[in-house]
């Protein structure tokens, strides 16, 4: 490999001194090969309590039926579909990071892709449980599939976006699972080869017998690239189809042609916020500051800012079109978001998603870890309210004022939602314990060219333009994992 040198003005993707291939393995596998620390146990206990609440609330729903939720004749769809769309949206960032950023050759994805993909899988699991739960009789889920039956056969209606959604979500889940697990194979092999006894045997089965020979790697890279290529349109199709669940209806507030791109942007927006929420904690608790650097955090914040602004433009477009269409029902629906009884939900939606994220134009905010974390939570809240506003606020005042109603969630609604967050975090915490939070093999690819030490060596060798060197050093100031003082003489 004739390693070419990357321009010095690019920020390092791996920081720290004496980062060798062995050190990467040690650092990343530390939480896997050792007993978990206190922070992990606290997190895991809280999360599994949430998961237990979920099991209880879902069992309650199955036993007593959907009547235990707060739905009424006017608002027949509320927290369930809100939660579903919220989780599916969160899932999108994983695919975006692993697939779209791979196609764009964004190498900073290498240290965040595996945990983002895991997040996708767990978020889609949470979303799928909503679909099954809201059927009330979970075995009815089979009727979503075009299976021969005793009614004729009466087939599912392929003209309906709800059936497209069954196909889109199930394909998305299975393809993401394949992408994620194939990517994990080389790293599982590393755990296997370092282990002993039963530990090795378990990881040996999980590793599929990976060896890392030339042909294996070559095929692995082909598979990754093609999967990335076909996952990209797939991920766009999934949330487009989710949006068509609404957009193909005649409901004011839903019947909007802008919905597919608007939902996709919103999905990436909320997904990146969730990645940020998770990784800021993970990097701190597992001590991965050298791999998930300030550059990663800032880049993700930039994507949050961009997608948040796209969402903002979509909001404005919706309002403009409602005005411009001249349709009074359409106009009332959008006005109702501010002057109706759900004005506070509207304020949460527009405030959290558009106004709050605009502070990310400031570099000080983008590179501030506590603020980034708080903002990522705000985005998660805002995106939940977006779906709530679109669904409940549009439904609760329909064409007939005599049927206008409010939606009041019951404890079952609330518990299913809080519980699903518990399920998500339980799965994620188990993942970083059993597998690994960072794709080692892919980070190792960065060491020779994109790491801080490689760039430092280049600096010490000289032969670089002073202007570029100064630019590089200036960029290092924001990194919390770099000792800038060491660079004064370099």
């Amino acid at each position, binding site marked *: 490999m004739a390693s070419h040198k990357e321009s010095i003005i690019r920020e390092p993707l791996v920081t720290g001194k004496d980062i060798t291939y062995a050190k990467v393995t040690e650092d990343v596998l530390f939480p896997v090969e050792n007993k978990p620390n206190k922070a992990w146990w606290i997190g895991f206990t809280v999360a599994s309590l949430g998961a237990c609440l979920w099991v209880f609330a879902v069992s309650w729903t199955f036993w007593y039926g959907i009547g235990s939720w707060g739905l009424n004749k006017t608002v027949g769809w509320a927290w369930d579909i809100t939660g579903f769309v919220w989780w599916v949206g969160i899932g999108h960032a994983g695919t975006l990071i692993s697939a779209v950023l791979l196609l764009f050759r964004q190498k900073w994805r290498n240290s965040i892709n595996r945990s983002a993909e895991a997040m996708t899988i767990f978020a889609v699991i949470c979303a799928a449980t909503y679909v099954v739960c809201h059927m009330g009789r979970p075995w009815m889920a089979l009727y979503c599939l075009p299976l021969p039956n005793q009614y004729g056969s009466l087939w599912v209606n392929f003209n309906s976006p709800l059936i497209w959604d069954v196909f889109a979500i199930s394909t998305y889940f299975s393809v993401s699972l394949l992408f994620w697990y194939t990517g994990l194979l080389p790293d599982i092999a590393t755990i296997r080869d370092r282990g002993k006894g039963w530990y090795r045997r378990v990881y040996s*089965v999980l590793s599929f017998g990976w060896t890392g020979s030339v*042909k294996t790697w070559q095929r*692995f890279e082909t598979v990754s690239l093609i999967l990335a290529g076909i996952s990209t349109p797939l991920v766009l199709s999934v949330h487009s189809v989710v949006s068509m669940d609404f957009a193909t209806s005649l409901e004011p507030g839903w019947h909007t042609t802008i919905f597919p791109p608007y939902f996709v942007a919103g999905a990436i927006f909320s997904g990146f916020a969730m990645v940020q929420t998770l990784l800021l904690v993970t990097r701190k608790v597992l001590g991965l500051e050298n791999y998930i650097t300030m550059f990663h955090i800032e880049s993700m914040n930039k994507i949050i800012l961009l997608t948040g602004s796209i969402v903002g433009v979509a909001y404005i477009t919706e309002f403009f079109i409602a005005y411009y269409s001249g349709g009074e029902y359409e106009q009332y629906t959008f006005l109702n978001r501010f002057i109706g009884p759900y004005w506070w939900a509207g304020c949460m939606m527009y405030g959290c998603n558009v106004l709050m994220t605009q502070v990310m134009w400031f570099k000080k905010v983008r590179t501030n870890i506590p603020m980034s974390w708080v903002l990522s939570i705000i985005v998660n809240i805002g995106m939940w309210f977006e779906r709530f506003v679109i669904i409940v606020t549009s439904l609760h005042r329909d064409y007939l004022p005599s049927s206008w109603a409010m939606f009041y969630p019951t404890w079952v609604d609330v518990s299913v939602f809080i519980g699903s967050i518990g399920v998500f975090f339980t799965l994620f915490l188990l993942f970083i314990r059993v597998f690994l939070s960072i794709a080692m093999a892919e980070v190792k690819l960065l060491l020779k060219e994109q790491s801080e030490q490689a760039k430092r060596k280049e600096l010490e060798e000289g032969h670089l333009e002073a202007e570029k060197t100064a630019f590089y050093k200036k960029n290092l100031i924001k990194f919390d994992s770099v000792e800038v003082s060491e660079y004064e003489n370099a």
Partner: protein
Amino acid sequence: MSSTKFILGLFDDPDDMMHGIDKLQKNSIPIYDVYTPMPIHGIEAKLGIKDSRLGYAAFMFGCLGGTTIFILIYYFLVHDWPMNIGGKPHFAVPDFIPATFEWSVLFASFGMGFTFFYATHLFPGRAPRVMDFRATNDRFVIAIDAKGNIPHDDITNLLKEAGAVEVKHNDRKYVSYE
């Protein structure tokens, strides 16, 4: 006759390992395989390994998936039980597109994925054929079949000259078997 089955050159740097491959090839010593903890770009060309044909497999499987679901939907909605929905055509092609697309992607992914596993002999429970345990961690390993490649000392020296941090003469092909 020595009992050495395989000679392994262990490198701690991928560039040194590539240099090692050059040296061996210059001396007409055939390389059995190379094991690395990460993909090495450009190594296939050097070792004369053909491009992967998995892309063709993915394309064929994708076509199969799309065709399958399209035919199925046609059978369901046009042939077996056409529904009168406001007098609209039964053969409403635009409505068939989302599911057709999804199954094209589904078949392409899994078809290619399983072809990869099949061709590379990867499946859960397969005994890993490891020549050196550090090849998945921090060592870049060139494996040379010892049979017919003598004298072994010359190979050792060549590898060392190229920058190998360690040269192993293994009596067993795979160290992972118990």
